[in-house]
């Protein structure tokens, strides 16, 4: 298992290869399509993170010292970014997640997608992922 830092580094390297926004967006769309589906029983309003435009469902499970996140979104671009966040944080231990610095967001040029004004639910999603981590770290 790679650390959060290592995974971020890989993602930054992946994105550095794209020549234009089209390649970048196509990659995000592909990631969105490939995201492991969330169990339907977790796609409920309690797990819904409301953005003004797109919606995100997030579920977290804690086992053997690690958090496994599953998620979904109704917009595919949002889902692509959700997939990256899961890629970075899922499978890590709670205290690592809680204190993780997600610098890669700036570096891969997705900062605007993750600004609160975008209202796509992603900012709240990160917050929610960290809240789960804080809650689970107390169980450690």
């Amino acid at each position, binding site marked *: 298992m790679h650390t959060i830092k290592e995974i971020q580094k890989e993602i930054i390297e992946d994105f550095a290869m794209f020549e234009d*926004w*089209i390649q970048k*967006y*196509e990659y995000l*769309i592909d990631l969105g399509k490939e995201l492991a589906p969330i169990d339907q029983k977790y796609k409920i309003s309690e797990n819904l993170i409301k953005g*003004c*435009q*797109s*919606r995100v469902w997030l579920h977290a499970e804690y086992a053997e010292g690690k958090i496994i996140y599953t998620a979904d979104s*109704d*917009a*595919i*671009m*949002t889902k692509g970014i959700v997939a990256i966040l899961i890629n970075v944080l899922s499978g890590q231990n709670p205290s690592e997640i809680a204190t993780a610095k997600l610098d890669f967001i700036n570096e891969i040029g997705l900062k605007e*997608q993750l600004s609160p004004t975008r209202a*796509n639910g992603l900012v709240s999603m990160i917050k929610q992922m960290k809240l789960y981590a804080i809650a689970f770290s107390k169980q450690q």
Partner: protein
Amino acid sequence: MLDVSKIRSQFPILSRKVNGQNLVYFDNGATTQKPQIVIDAESKYYANQNSNVHRGVHFLSGLATDKFEESRNTIQNFIGAKHKHEIIFTKGTTDSINLVASGFKTFLNKGDEIIISEQEHHSNIVPWQICCEQSGSNLKVIPILDNGEMDMDFFYNLLSENTKLVAVSHISNALGTINNVEKIIEKSHSVGAKVLIDGAQAASHISLNMQKLDADFYCFSAHKMFGPTGVGILYGKEDILNALPPYQSGGEMIKEVSFSGTTYADLPHKFEAGTPNISGVVAFKSAIDFISNLEVNKIAKYEEELLQYATSELLKIEGVRIYGTSKKKSAIISFNLEGLHPYDIGMIVDKMGIAIRTGHHCAQPIMERFNIPGTVRISLAVYNTKEEIDLCINAIKKAKIMLS
């Protein structure tokens, strides 16, 4: 015929680039761009005329007051109001509606009814919910039909002697429907109800005459008609405005203040407490002059042409569904592509320099009505062109390919 390239040249922002592409601005329903004369009027005001209005005896205060009141005259003429003091300056449509809702609740008793429609912008829903809650009256809603028109038979059945106010939009911002407000006003008056028309999407697209229309209140925003943000109009009939209690209180709106009792100023000042957005009001006149020079009817004709073209081009894309297909429509097209989320489409076309709106357009009940999370909305203005529509259609096609 309008000389559109000449019109375009008056809007400096239209020549800027977005994401390296020429800007195609199709979000005019949210706000329009501003012509140079409006920008100039605002800066000239501050460079040359600035002072507070209706106060000082000095030269500049007189000049600023004259300019401010000249705007009121221009708007009175533009909408065919009987009296100049029937024009109240507000912050915008939302502010105008809140002003009326806040005062109107004092006229209402338990069991009275206010009627709105399913099509309304949140600005014409929430103030009435609060008004009803505070006065113990009931809010009734006219449903809309599949084509985006109001169900008029349902409306006629809702009307009764309990109806005290009917508040509906002239044009739906989310569907583009031009509502039959003449009929709504006539029928409402026949049961003694007052009528407020939310004209945010209509002013500058439809020629207005308040004396003919006979609405009791009419609200609109300067920023949606080439004017500055933060300025709006409440038109109200003189007798009703006189009866309506003040909204905000403080300076400017009083006749005499003493601790044994305060008397209010006459119209329109009774509703204009505090220092207003003077530069905005002054520049709004230039926006109206701009519109009047082009002539509203010619604007409407050209926009209709754009609407027809955009609609037919859009419908050539497989899987397009347009929401709002009424015969009488303004140049607003709300649509979805089968299986695709509006947000994704908006994100991709943005990269191609196309500014369109995605989401629920502050009209969530409509989205619920059609059971969709939102739509993509193209809203056109007089400076838009068929070439821009082609660019937009191509961008949408590109988005469709990328997303499917």
